[in-house]
């Protein structure tokens, strides 16, 4: 997993969910982060798209289930 992307995604998620970045890991998911609801999922995608200059498909948004998933998606889109 790309550590630079992970660090940026952790900072974005920490700001969005209003928690310290130390609380966000690759394993953080809606199941472990109460603030991560369906609306915040969309806000997270907006922030990621704007920050990394990528576009996510509806299916990818549905399947984004953790911070690690977000990092892998961004990594794949940047390579592609």
């Amino acid at each position: 997993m790309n550590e630079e992307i992970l660090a940026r995604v952790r900072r974005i998620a920490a700001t969005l969910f209003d928690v310290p970045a130390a609380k966000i890991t690759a394993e953080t998911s809606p199941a472990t982060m109460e603030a991560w609801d369906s609306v915040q999922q969309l806000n997270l995608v907006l922030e990621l798209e704007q920050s990394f200059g990528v576009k996510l498909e509806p299916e990818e948004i549905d399947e984004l289930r953790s911070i690690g998933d977000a990092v892998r998606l961004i990594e794949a889109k940047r390579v592609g």
Partner: protein
Amino acid sequence: MNDSEFFTFHHLGVAVRSIEKALPSYEKLFGYRLLSGPFRDPIQRVSVCFLGRGEGGDITIELVEPADEDSPVGKLLDKGAGAYHLCYEAADMDEALRRVADQGCIIVAKPAPAVAFGNRRIAWFYTPARQLIEVLERSL
């Protein structure tokens, strides 16, 4: 054609736990009447109905009830949602989605037929201003 001509406002979507329980207050307080529905939409996993007053300039309200425990609208209601989406009609769905993507919106759901609109297609997007929008195809 500019955006004000391309997209025309259609309705305001309001999430409710129960259409049956919500309807009387809209009728008795504000004089709305049932225009159509309720319709059960298995793709969106909701039941919906449309209310209006038939007065010039007034809007149509869509009451949206979750159809099952895992319905996305049920999760919104858990957070206290009431009015949660705006719907605009567009003649050309593909062009509509191109325009919203160009404005930095995210496409949340691709076009799918909707029972409540005689199987005309709807799609969903989310704006950078954090507003959920439904697009309704003007005709089949």
